């Protein structure tokens, strides 16, 4: 027998994992402020749900859960296409992926939820950034080689 029985214990394994992925995705969606990370978190919630559906499909011995998961994959792909198009438009407006710049879209009567004025400035790590040591090849360029001293950003 290549197949072992899929008992309720197996089902509850997958259900617990799906619940964990789903609530961690919810945590990311609630707490992160980057638009792209928020969309990735939403996709992770979908992954947890897909895990649940596949395990139920196996437990009940029919294909319905897997067909549902295929539909969900399609919806996720459409959602990602539209989300990326929207993110591109929003990024072109503000040159930033910050979700809190779009707080004007909130319900009327609600206070602003963020106070970025108190934010501390970014402290870069001291010293030059380390880059991989590439093997020199080809003709030596005529200009003198300068070591890289600056960090990006």
């Amino acid at each position, binding site marked *: 027998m290549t197949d072992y029985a899929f008992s309720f214990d197996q089902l509850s394994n997958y259900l617990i994992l799906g619940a964990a992925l789903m609530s961690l995705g919810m945590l990311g969606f609630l707490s992160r402020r980057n638009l792209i990370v928020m969309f990735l978190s939403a996709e992770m919630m979908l992954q947890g749900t897909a895990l649940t559906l596949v395990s139920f499909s196996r437990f009940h011995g*029919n294909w319905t859960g897997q067909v549902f998961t295929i539909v969900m994959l399609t919806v996720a792909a459409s959602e990602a296409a539209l989300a990326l198009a929207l993110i591109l438009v929003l990024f072109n407006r503000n040159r930033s992926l910050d979700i809190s710049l779009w707080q004007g879209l909130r319900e009327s009567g609600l206070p602003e939820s963020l106070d970025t004025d108190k934010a501390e400035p970014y402290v870069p790590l001291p010293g030059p950034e380390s880059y991989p040591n590439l093997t020199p090849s080809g003709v030596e360029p005529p200009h003198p080689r300068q070591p890289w001293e600056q960090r990006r950003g």
Partner: protein
Amino acid sequence: MTLLDTRDFGWILAIVALGWVGMWLLLPHRHGGSRTTRVTSVGALLAGIALLLFLPLLTPPGPLLPTLFFYAFSLLSLIGAVLMITARDPVYSALWFATVVLASSGLFLLAGAQFLAAGTVIVYAGAIIVTFLFVLMLAQSHGQAIYDRSARRPLASSFTSLLLLGALVASIVATGSGVTEETPSPVVSVNDLVKGDPATEPVALVAATAVRETARLPEPHEFGQRPPHVAGLGGTLFTDHLLAVEVIGLLLFIALIGAVAIATPRIPVRPDRSNGSAPGSSSSAPAGTA
């Protein structure tokens, strides 16, 4: 339906409490302050203990090799999920999400969904991640922007999510704790109902009518004899769910039109100038970027 016993309840409470504090310490600071290495390592330790406390809730699936792969994939997906949420650099977030997708497609394989495992890898890790990485490279913030270094209400949101996780896990474990010798499964599988005699049992008749022959998973075969997996999935897709297939094809088409309509840059029409400037270039100084 039985209630949770005290030991399971305490166990889940420990997961919720440790995960709450650990995720709060691992997430970015509310005002974008920098965390010291010690605080981060304490958070990683607490979250790691909470992840390890998950493992005794899972039951090993039979033989050694499936057990080994199941625990490896589940740990990998949980660790990848935590690191995806807490990574400051969104490029790392995307890569950890790819790890989560690969691990969960391994779990799909273990649950007997070969086609979905391959499809998930192709659709998510192949297409979506690459597109997200393109957009991330366009934004070029490298985790230094203020919106990457700060989180929205990390204490409250991690408490909410961990409470949801605790409630879900508690309900699943409470359902599973009703297993006795007489009732080995607290949830009735349709697979068992279908096998009953339709002439004597009305429930079996209903189940057999609702779940047609094409909609059932193939029976387990002898060693070396492969059940026709993808053929069965295609069979049920194009007989039982034909309308759904048509509808999702239409949905993809509409999403394609929508994406093209939204993302196409529109050159603003200026009455005084014949050729307007490029869109977006006239916006103000970069907001929020370092």
